[in-house]
């Protein structure tokens, strides 16, 4: 409302001659614009809220339990998670003998131990965590290598062939959009159970995601080094390797680290749907109702994710300075 008066009054002293009509016109024009805008806003918000209410109704209808029926029981599960005593979590995490051991898998679990020597073993959860981390790192690494090779073919300032660019970009989009779970499921059928399907699934997705980020970085690169190399007769490979790669490498590595954070989570989730690793232990532990184990796993996962995020943020800051990337954009 403040703006309205400001606009209406503003032009009047500047152009005294056509003041009467101009002021009137501007005012009316502003009103029209404002009315139109308000209408758009109302229509837009109504549509949004209609969609929201339909979505909520639909979600509630198709859910196994209804929202308001289940709401009072929201924390039942959290209550079930309370361990017998606080030290149980600690013991579960490092697989130390529990005083409550009753022969079941609930307290002690010698099966998952990886014995390095006669007496020294790696607790199952620590081992699974390392496995999941390795899945994420290896997948990110493979994704980095392949994304690195592909991105130059998709960048308009490096690759002149329009068709090649189009094809490579669509290919990367396809890799990115293809559901990871299907890749994992398919390779589970071929390789049988184990972490390799998860590696392949996460790596394929990473190729697409990193390739897209990378080619955008390459397209924003300074072309002067490239020009210089072209002037002295460098071939395509030399121009890319000596002209482009040195300036984009910090950004590439930074995006890769960002992807690593995402991949640690992704490999946990893929694990939970059957590809082994940490996610699977978590799902099993929850479904069996082993409260101390579940809490230990959640704690371990939380710590790992925080640690990876912090490490990656620190490295990224070193690579590209304070101006770290916002997520996703």
């Amino acid at each position, binding site marked *: 409302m403040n703006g309205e008066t400001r606009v209406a009054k503003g032009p009047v002293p500047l152009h005294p001659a056509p003041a009467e009509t101009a002021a009137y016109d501007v005012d009316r024009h502003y009103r029209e614009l404002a009315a139109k805008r308000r209408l758009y806003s109302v229509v837009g918000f109504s549509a949004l809220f209609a969609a929201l209410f339909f979505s909520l109704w639909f979600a509630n209808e198709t859910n196994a339990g209804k929202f308001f029926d289940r709401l009072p029981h929201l924390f039942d599960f959290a209550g079930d998670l309370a361990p017998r005593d606080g030290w149980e979590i600690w013991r579960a995490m490092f697989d130390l003998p529990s005083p409550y051991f009753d022969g079941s898998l609930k307290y002690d679990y010698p099966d998952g131990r990886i014995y390095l020597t006669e007496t020294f073993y790696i607790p199952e959860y620590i081992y699974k965590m390392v496995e999941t981390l390795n899945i994420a790192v290896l997948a990110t690494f493979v994704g980095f290598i392949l994304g690195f090779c592909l991105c130059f073919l998709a960048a308009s300032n490096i690759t002149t062939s329009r068709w090649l660019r189009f094809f490579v970009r669509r290919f990367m989009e396809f890799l990115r959009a293809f559901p990871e779970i299907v890749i994992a499921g398919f390779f589970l*059928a071929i390789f049988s159970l184990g972490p390799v399907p998860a590696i392949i699934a996460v790596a394929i997705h990473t190729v697409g995601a990193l390739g897209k980020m990378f080619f955008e970085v390459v397209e924003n690169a300074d072309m002067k080094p490239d020009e210089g190399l072209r002037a002295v007769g460098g071939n395509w490979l030399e121009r890319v390797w000596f002209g482009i790669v040195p300036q984009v490498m910090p950004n590439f590595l930074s995006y890769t680290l960002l992807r690593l954070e995402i991949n640690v989570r992704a490999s946990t989730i893929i694990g939970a749907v059957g590809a082994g690793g940490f996610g699977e232990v978590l799902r099993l532990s929850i479904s069996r109702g082993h409260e101390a184990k579940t809490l230990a796993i959640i704690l371990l996962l939380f710590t790992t994710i925080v640690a990876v995020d912090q490490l990656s943020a620190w490295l990224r800051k070193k690579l590209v300075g304070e101006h770290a990337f916002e997520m996703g954009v």
Partner: protein
Amino acid sequence: MQLSELTTADIAAIRARNADAFRPSLWKRFAVPIGVTIACVYIAYCSWFFSISKVVEKANWQIASEYLYDWFSYEVRPDIDYRDGETRIDFPRFSPLGENPDPDWIETREGTVTVVTQNKPKAQQPASQGSFMASPAAGKKATEPETSILDKVGEQGFSFMAPGAQGSGQAKAQAAHEEPQVSTVTRLGIAETTVRLDRGTVLHITPQMVTVTHAGETVELMVNAQENTVKSRSALPSWALQKREDAKVFLDFGFSGRAEVRARETKIARRYLGWENFFFDTRSPYWGMSWGAVGEHLLVGPQLVDGQSNWSVFWDSIVNNAEWQHGDVWIKLLQTIVMAFVGTLFALLIAFPLSFLAARNITPNVVLNQVLKRFFDFLRSVDMLIWALFFTRAFGPGPLAGISAIFFTDTGTFGKLYAEALENIDEKQREGIRSVGASTMQIQRFGVIPQVLPIFISQALYFWESNTRSATIIGAVGAGGIGLKLWEAMRTNQDWENVAYMVILILIVVFIFDNVSNALRSRLIGKQG
């Protein structure tokens, strides 16, 4: 200036001027080799850790190609049974060809057959496959070859032959006391079946021999139901595989199909390109109609089902298609979309006000800032998976769990991103608004929001699109949506065509959302976004 004109002094001067170019620091010189070495060591470690070579060695690549074919083709699997001395064609129940299939690529020829029956009530085979079965005609005389086969069996004392059953070949059962008794009947029946898989692939099946022609090579496999053996007359070609002597022979015809020649039956799988019965399953009255006929029934044609309009039958048939389950797939897909939409929207609505409290330049309260920022970190770092499992327990499987999981994770993400964006705003606009005496709310409304709103919405749109993809995955742990359906279809390893169908639907949805989100974002923050 040419390089040749450089004197040693010039070179020295250039060297002195660009010291770092000619003598880079140790780190710069060795960064690449060190990096490559570390990478190689790591790869070696991983291949040991995951024992990749072993896994690849044990991988079943044969199955991989079968499964890949299943994505876009289907098989029809007739079994040619000849254990009784007559060839008989069986299709499994729920064959894509419907009940009583009579495809023109299977030809039968009638002839004299000697049927071996065991004297047990179940031995009388029902004449189920109408069009293939000739009416049994008993009472013919036994021919020589059959007799000799029986002889051989008798001599070797094969378990279900009576010991005294030598050379008689009579229709009557042997006067043997042992169970079970066996009798042979010579009558008119189906003596031969010819199965034509494609132009160059033909299986010619008689109760004694299966002759297979493929890729210009012919192999003759002697089958003996009584001895339970399969023997090849010549060396097996590359597309045939017999793992043990006398055991069944696997035939691989590439895309056209495959077959398994056993002593008592031959199992054939013929592959067709496409998705079978995609619109109407075999129970539907529209099944087998051409699209012209379907249109005619819809518009003018006679009523197909009493008391139900043709349109309603049409819709019912598609939605309740037993093989493809269109209705269920669409509902699950809509759940996935709804999960991403509602989860992201709620996260946006909650994170928006909280981020103002978390930004240190807007709310100068260090304790509150820190508490909120750590809270956001907590929401974000407790993985979406954990939230999904937690809410699946709380609300039961379904989209409510998925919505809550996305909502919790993204509230953390949005809160963090928005607080960072708010801390980077231009302070001048706020100062200007404050200087004309605006209230706190007005400062935020006119001094801050116009600067950050495009970024906020752009990020929300980006996450909306990416959550559509994550919603697929968390669905598989029970949090609703198409993920679980995908996972179930994959676990049986039978329904890869359904997986392909769902993947295509997901790809279409992601593609549309990607484009909508990109279009909206570029309108909001300009092309560079």
